[in-house]
């Protein structure tokens, strides 16, 4: 059972790494942010399985914190893009 | 090979990557990223030190150091970004080139 969990973690990690290609490739910033979103969900799953396999229930708290914060970077990104469009309109400080 | 060694060596590699970029890259935002990568590398080395205990229970002292270090690194990043923005609004520059100051 121990090894089954580790195989599962490795598999999830590999699907996450496959998503890296999308951050690298783009083509739009939205695609890159999407990939970051994938990281949140998959990493939470990995942490939960890791909590089971290493018998460390505190890792569930890490997954909980990750779940709470999963939306922050995407939010910062969409806010940022909205503010900077149209570009340079009142930047003459 | 042990897991701890793999991750500690990763930390050493990260420190070097960051150091190289800190020296070579001219854009200041890139230098800030490089500083963050260096600190992550050092943190990994310290956490590796903490995790090599034979009994399985990690050493709490380096862990506590890394924990506070992470928070301080975020504050330092914020200060560096504020400095970058202030430099930009004072001189219009975001790069540290030695020979093409505008």
């Amino acid at each position: 059972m121990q090894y089954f969990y580790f195989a599962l973690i490795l598999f999830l990690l590999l699907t996450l790494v496959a998503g890296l290609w999308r951050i690298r490739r783009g083509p739009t910033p939205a695609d890159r942010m999407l990939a970051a979103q994938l990281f949140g969900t998959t990493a939470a799953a990995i942490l939960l399985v890791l909590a089971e396999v290493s018998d460390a229930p505190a890792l569930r708290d890490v997954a909980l914190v990750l779940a709470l914060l999963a939306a922050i970077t995407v939010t910062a990104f969409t806010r940022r893009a909205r503010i900077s469009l149209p570009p340079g309109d009142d930047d003459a400080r | 090979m042990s897991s701890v060694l793999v991750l500690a060596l990763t930390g050493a590699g990260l420190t070097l990557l960051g150091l190289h970029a800190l020296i070579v890259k001219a854009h200041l935002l890139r230098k800030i990223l490089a500083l963050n990568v260096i600190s992550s590398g050092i943190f990994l080395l310290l956490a590796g030190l903490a995790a090599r205990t034979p009994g399985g229970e990690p050493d709490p002292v380096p862990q506590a150091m890394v924990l506070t270090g992470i928070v301080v690194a975020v504050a330092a990043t914020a200060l560096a970004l504020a400095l970058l923005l202030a430099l930009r609004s004072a001189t219009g520059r975001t790069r540290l080139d030695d020979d093409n100051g505008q």
Partner: protein
Amino acid sequence: MLASLSVVLLLAGAAFFLGGSVGMLRFPDVYTRLHALTKADNLGLGLVVLGLMLQAESLAAVGKLFVIWLLLLAASATASQLVASWAQENGFAPWRG
């Protein structure tokens, strides 16, 4: 019995995660990728959480796992909405077969 059911659920969850990643890599534009990613991954996480719930040591742990799943559902739904409306406002036209 419970253990084998848990394994089946975990494997099914992993399959959905694979589907999400394949969709993200292969689909043609940002909207379709959004669709693949948020749906498949959150279903995958739900199945993994369900599988782990069967192994959990206490009722409190079951509750915590469930809350984590709900929170990520809310976060994903919001994030996909924000990204999609960002893409639309910035003039990325949806892909037409």
